[in-house]
């Protein structure tokens, strides 16, 4: 149960090795927080991340989580609640970027990304949302992307999954409001991180720390969406309405 300042006692990060996700967890930590759980596929890498977070009064556990093994998600969510009590904040931070040139022609590669980024998110988010419904409170942070706001030709599969995730989170968030569960959709622009190593930063590029900062502020204020940087909201309200032939020719990588 979070306190009156909105400070959580228990945080679960899905995509426990995500740089942005870990930055949000670090930003959320405060003397009230008792437990942070990193749910990830690569538990060895998760353990290294956990070591960097642990201190005397904070338990950091790593649990195995496979986005594609959707049949395991409900059990995992239930186990988390049984073991750690109410989940105050769940951060949905896992995604595969893929290489645009490959995924837009290779169906197998495309399906892999669609399964992780969309099917995996939908399944795990609903199982966590169901636990939070039983609690009557909780917050879900959904890492969306401006890539889903208007999908670029450079990476249609990644952009398409983010568009789907964003729409899913909007609808689910509205459905959850009556049950006391808060959904925050985070729409960062290009984030300079391991995921984007080797790519040329797009205009308005940001960092995991800046995304975390904006996310935690929006979470405390119970906002529904947050763009990072905030300017992108206005940039995309223009880009969204560009005629197709113009949008297609924009040098957006």
């Amino acid at each position, binding site marked *: *149960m*979070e*306190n*009156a*300042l*909105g*400070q959580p*006692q228990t945080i679960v990060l899905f995509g426990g090795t995500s740089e942005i996700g870990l930055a949000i967890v670090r930003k959320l930590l*405060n*003397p*009230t927080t*008792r437990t942070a759980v990193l749910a990830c596929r690569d538990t060895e890498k998760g353990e290294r991340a956990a070591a960097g977070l642990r201190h005397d*009064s904070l338990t950091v556990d790593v649990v195995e989580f496979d986005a594609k093994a959707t049949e395991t998600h409900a059990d995992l969510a239930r186990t988390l609640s049984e073991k750690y*009590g*109410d989940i105050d904040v769940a951060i949905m931070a896992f995604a595969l970027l893929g290489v645009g040139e490959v995924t837009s022609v290779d169906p197998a590669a495309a399906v892999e990304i669609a399964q992780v980024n969309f099917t995996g998110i939908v399944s795990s988010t609903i199982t966590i949302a169901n636990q939070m*419904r*039983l*609690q*009557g*409170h909780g917050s879900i942070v959904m890492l969306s992307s401006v890539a889903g706001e208007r999908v670029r030709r450079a990476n249609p599969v990644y952009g398409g999954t983010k568009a789907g995730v964003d729409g899913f989170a909007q609808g689910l968030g509205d459905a959850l409001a*009556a*049950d*006391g569960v808060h959904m925050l959709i985070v729409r960062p622009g290009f984030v300079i991180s391991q995921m984007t190593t080797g790519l040329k930063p797009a205009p308005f590029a940001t960092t995991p720390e800046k995304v975390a900062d904006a996310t935690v502020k929006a979470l405390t*204020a*119970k906002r529904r969406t947050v763009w990072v940087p905030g300017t992108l909201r206005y940039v995309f309200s223009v880009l969204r309405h560009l005629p197709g032939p113009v949008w297609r020719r924009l040098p957006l990588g």
Partner: protein
Amino acid sequence: MPNPSRAQLWGWGRTNPTVAEEVTVTAGGVAAALKEAGPRGALARGLGRSYGDAAQNGGGLVLRLAAGAGDVVLDAATGRATVGAGVSVDQLLRVIVPRGFFVPVTPGTRFVTIGGAIASDIHGKNHHVDGSIANYIDSITMMLADGSTTLVGPRDNPALFWATTGGMGLTGIMLDATIRLLPIETSRMRVDTSRVPDLDTLLATMSSGDDDVRYSVAWIDLVAKGRHLGRSVLSRGDHARLGDLDARQAVDPFAYGPHQIVAVPPIVPSVGVLNHASIAAFNEVWYRKAPKLRTGEIQGIGTFFHPLDFVGSWNRLYGKRGMLQYQFVVPFGQEHAMRTVVERLSASGAPSFLAVLKRFGEANPGPLSFPRAGWTLALDLPGASRGLGDLLHGLDRVVLDAGGRHYFAKDSHMTPDAVRRSYPRLDEWKAIRDEVDPHRVWQSDLGRRLGLI
């Protein structure tokens, strides 16, 4: 039985609501309603005036006890009243004041239920001489987790009685209580008011003079700095005797009909209207308008005890982020800790609207009862104040290191570790609770957050 309906429930501070199944029942319907409780358990909720999450039970069942006619039975010969747990202090006063009695303890608002008052073991301006409300309870009829009804009191099952007073509703649901009332000659108060220039003078004045007066409280300006640090308006009084009233007042010595003057509309700008500038200005005016010294003023009960009740829903003034209340006690001899807290609040720029300082007398036997001999300070802070988390964590350490503790009914910010440290008899309370509620039927958000359940 009426069907429960899903409702978002807040504390008075409007900070961290949760959604629960809420149902209003009569005392006779509690047992049936209790059967509906699922894994998230059940909790009684009164008027929702605890500031934080004490009267919330997210995902569980929340029972509101209806207050009906005949729920106040006054025995004027013995000065006792048997009162339904869902009856408010407001309703009770309207019955007993005209008949020459007053509640032995009243908090700063009369919109609390008797059940909530006992569950919080509330205190008032007279704690330094009279103690808290549990000291005046002869018996409580309560329903236990298994649906059985039992009578507890300081003589009948004292362990469960003292675990229930201050037990925040986690030992059972109270149905009614028999309270020893205070006989009064009039419905008016005889009040002395004085301005006190700084904190040291205030502590010295209260230490020397408090024991001679029944009611004593200081309104302290936590925005003032430097040599004005801790400047206050000290208000002391007692129930007026018949001879204190003028001829006009003496016509109806028990006149009592408090009313609300204004109510805050449901729509307030989401950022609220109480900010540093407006609060600092208010505190300045409050101090300046107080007389340097005025004695023997005759005031009404509402003006003296429940000034904020004149404004309905004043908590909405804090806007969307709500407010939190911070109340703690430090033992006598730890005045330096009190001074540190006042200094830090003043320096922080976090604007506090009318903080209240008073002296507590001895603690009662309740293992979770808040008051203990010492100084207590209570203050409101806007939830949107910048850096509030760090400020309060710092204050928590000062309070705990001084051997002090925080008040559950106002809590916004405690941690399980802080509770274990500052309520050393927690395990004793848990053992009593385990006997009457082994399966944790009684649950609350506060209980889950602070490791009480």
